[in-house]
């Protein structure tokens, strides 16, 4: 088994490590770490952070890519091996034991029968699905739920041990008012995880798609695509926005004129059109070099990277504008004047004073734009300039649903799974962004100045 990371894998894992390093380095910065703690303390912010961590964890596992025996798979694939390999022939409804449409079957005596076929994998342990299925499902939900509760209790116990508070009862965090929402979210996730695990073991929990792949598996795999898009695009946009914005605001003069011209020009073009134009152009370029790619996966990966590049290169303007305005304000603030009076060079002032003091804007804007990027993926894929059709993504799942909804009976599970998966991530990101803004925006901090009521 050999590690075989693609470019986006490296980018995603690298960013994860960078973020972890950032939080590690915060131990020395009281002010900032206190603000992050405030983020985690608010019920919505803390819950959103937990949910986001789940998503990031799945995406991280899905980026650890290996090759073995001519096959490429990720750590997530390895964990969900049965989901990956248990492929039906075509659509099947969630938790079904029978196919979704009647099929013609030729039996031994030349008899032709037309009815719903048994699925190859879904509910195959049942002897008589029509009778046993509901009882089996209820049992599994109960068993999974209990397992989840047990897991949650184990977590609480672990918490008690690591916190070294031997006298408190182990369920203490449940009673602590301050962390109640966060603890509840963890409990819910534990129970949900238990139930999903129990059901997904022998059923297709969310059904299967046109070629029989498990929809739960596809939904989980799509997380990585969404996150890569959000993270890598931001990663490309950030350095541009930060260097250009801050230097324009601080240095002024022709640098300012040039940067202003650049972002006015770019932001004059309606967003989707600019992205479409750039994506089309890059797409065409890649089509001509199609033979250069080693595999379909690496081609899809490059296309994803190109999309990130386009989104990044077109998405830096709003942050740049904000940073320029902030740097203009900071340029005349007294500690910057003092630094100049103390003989600081331009570079020293930029790095010591301007950059750290605009960082909250960078964080707020990045977290906010992340959810937009995840949502954009679906729209762009819908107009054929998004991710490669061969790649698992929510956009592709939704795109496919256009035809599925016209079928009779309606195939709704793919669409719903994609929308819910996306909704969870974007909601978590939005709530997290709100909490981050509340904690970091100095304007909002002064509650004493709030309106009379």
């Amino acid at each position, binding site marked *: 088994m050999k590690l075989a990371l693609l470019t986006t894998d490296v980018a995603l894992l690298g960013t994860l490590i960078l973020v972890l390093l950032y939080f590690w380095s915060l131990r020395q910065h009281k*002010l900032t770490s206190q603000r992050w703690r405030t983020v985690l303390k608010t019920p919505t912010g803390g819950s959103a952070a937990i949910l986001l961590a789940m998503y990031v964890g799945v995406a991280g596992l899905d980026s650890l890519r290996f090759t073995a025996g001519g096959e490429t798979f990720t750590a997530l694939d390895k964990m969900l091996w049965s989901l990956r390999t248990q492929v039906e022939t075509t659509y099947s409804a969630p938790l079904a034991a029978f196919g979704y449409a009647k099929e013609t079957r030729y039996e031994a005596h030349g008899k032709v029968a037309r009815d719903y076929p048994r699925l190859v994998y879904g509910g195959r342990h049942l002897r008589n699905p029509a009778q046993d299925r509901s009882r089996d499902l209820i049992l599994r939900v109960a068993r999974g739920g209990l397992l989840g509760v047990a897991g949650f209790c184990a977590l609480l116990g672990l918490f008690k041990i690591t916190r070294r508070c031997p006298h408190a009862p182990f369920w203490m965090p449940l009673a602590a008012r301050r962390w109640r929402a966060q603890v509840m979210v963890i409990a819910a996730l534990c129970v949900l995880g238990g139930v999903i695990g129990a059901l997904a073991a022998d059923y297709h929990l969310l059904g299967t798609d046109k070629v029989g792949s498990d929809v739960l598996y596809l939904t989980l795999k799509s997380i990585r695509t969404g996150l890569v898009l959000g993270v890598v695009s931001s990663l490309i946009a950030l350095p541009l926005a930060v260097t250009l914005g801050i230097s324009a605001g601080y240095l002024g003069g022709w640098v300012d004129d040039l940067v202003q011209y650049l972002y006015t020009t770019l932001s004059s073009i309606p967003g989707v059109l600019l992205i479409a134009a750039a994506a089309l152009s890059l797409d065409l370029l890649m089509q001509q070099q199609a033979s250069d790619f080693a595999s379909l996966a690496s081609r899809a990966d490059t296309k994803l990277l190109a999309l990130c590049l386009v989104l990044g290169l077109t998405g830096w303007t709003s942050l740049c504008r904000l940073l320029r305005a902030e740097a203009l304000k900071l340029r005349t603030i*007294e500690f910057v004047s003092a630094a100049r*009076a*103390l*003989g600081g060079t331009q570079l020293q002032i930029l790095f*010591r004073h301007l950059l750290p003091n605009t960082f909250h804007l960078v964080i707020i804007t990045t977290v906010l734009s992340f959810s937009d990027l995840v949502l954009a993926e679906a729209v762009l894929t819908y107009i054929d300039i998004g991710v490669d059709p061969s790649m698992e993504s929510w956009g592709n799942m939704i795109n496919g649903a256009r035809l599925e909804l016209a079928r009779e009976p309606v195939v709704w599970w793919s669409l719903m799974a994609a929308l819910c998966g996306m909704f969870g991530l974007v909601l978590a990101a939005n709530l997290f962004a709100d909490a981050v803004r509340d904690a970091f925006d100095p304007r909002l901090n002064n509650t004493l100045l709030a309106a009379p009521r």
Partner: protein
Amino acid sequence: MSLLEIQDLVIEVGAGATATSVVAGIALQVEQGCTTVLVGESGSGKSMTALGVVRLLPAAAHITRGAICLNGQDLLQLPEHQMCDVRGARIGFVFQEPQSALNPVMKVGDQIGEVLARHLGLHGKVRRERVAELLAAVGIHDPRQRMTEYPHQFSGGMKQRVMLAIALAGEPELLIADEPTTALDVSTQAQILTLLQREQQQRGMGMLFITHDLAVAYQVADKLAVMKGGILVEAGSRAEIFSAPTQAYTKHLLAVSPRIESAVVPVSRTITTDPPLLEIKGLSVTFPIRRGFFKRVVAQFAAVNALDLSVQAGETVAVVGESGSGKTSLGRSVLRLLEASAGTVSFLGQDFFRLNPAQLRHARRDLQIVFQDPYAAMNPRLTVQQIIEEGMVSLGIGGNARARITRVEQLLNLVGLEPHFRLRFPHEFSGGQRQRISIARALAVEPKLLVCDEPTSALDVSVQAQILDLLRSLQDEMGLAYLFITHNLGVVAQIAHRVVVMHHGSIVESGTTQQVLFTPTHAYTQSLLAAVPRLP
């Protein structure tokens, strides 16, 4: 029965276990036709008390106990809609910040007329007449024209007059003025104070006047109440409080309030007659005014206009002026934080304006600056150690990291702070402590001259006195020279050897502190001195 009677008022901020009381059970009276002044330093709860009377506290604060009786009627028991009939009609309110207290997109006349319509039911022509009368009464010329203008067309003092007209429009029995002159210049302050007193006496209103300035209090008060930390320290008639204060805090406040008359004129040992340390010749700072199609420069606004000034080693020269006089531009252009358009600044004979950027960085070592706002003067993300050693690091002096730590500890000692503070962040300190850190930062590179740009005007009087003490003792020990920029003539009397008075970018008068403060020759200086409120 008093007009306003506050009994056992408690105001808390926050809720539940984290609630803290900002006003802790005070009692206060305002009599008909008299002025009660509430004096206190920042955080004393005086503004909260004023806002509490009209029940306009910020969302986080609330009244938890007490009674506020206006003519015997407890305002705290009134339902909100009845309280609306009290505000504006029976109680007029003047706020501190005239710049933001008026609606920017509403005509001034309409803002006053609104009160007339709400409480007196006046409309149409009658209302317009009444608005014009009110504006004329608060001393605004050509009221018929000006009532159709917007707030941004008025100066700060004029806005405060409009604010007063709004407060008076409902013909209130009680006027509450919350630091009404703090944001204004001395001469404007004098006008507004006179106006307030005149209106109060003519209308026979009671007035609750909030201020931090004892001299202002002395001028307007019939009765005084001194607050500290939410508690009423002492209350009594003006004569009692000023001539025979009983509480230590009141005595202390009186002692530290700067007085012009008691100018100490510290003739320092270190003054020499050698060639000056800093010599400014013909200095002009101009800002272009751009207009028209291509934003051409159509005129130059001269913030500083052909100014000459010199500072000897070990001497304090105070630059005094009102806002817009160009004193701040002067201070910054001396350090070349602001580029001057003409003139020379020579320091120890070296022409400052001819230096290239690299030379300038090193030359600035001799010349440092302390700013006004203790909150904006320090990067909130650095520790005190990093802040103080900044100059040493960027100029490459002060040795290695270990030597710098020792030096920072020394400096903290020097400015009267604990050495172990060096590991803390700025937000953990009070305004006065921050100003001490700012001074330590400037001293770290061993300058010969310190430009002090209003270093005490954001501080409470008691803290101000400490900082002035510190500056004086540093001068004695190290022979520092100060270019001390301020608007406060009382502070000048405490610290300066020589004074220059600036007006519209030029020096109108200069001389020793004694000469300028006691025998001013220029009319502007005389009017400035006349406008300063005095303590007995």
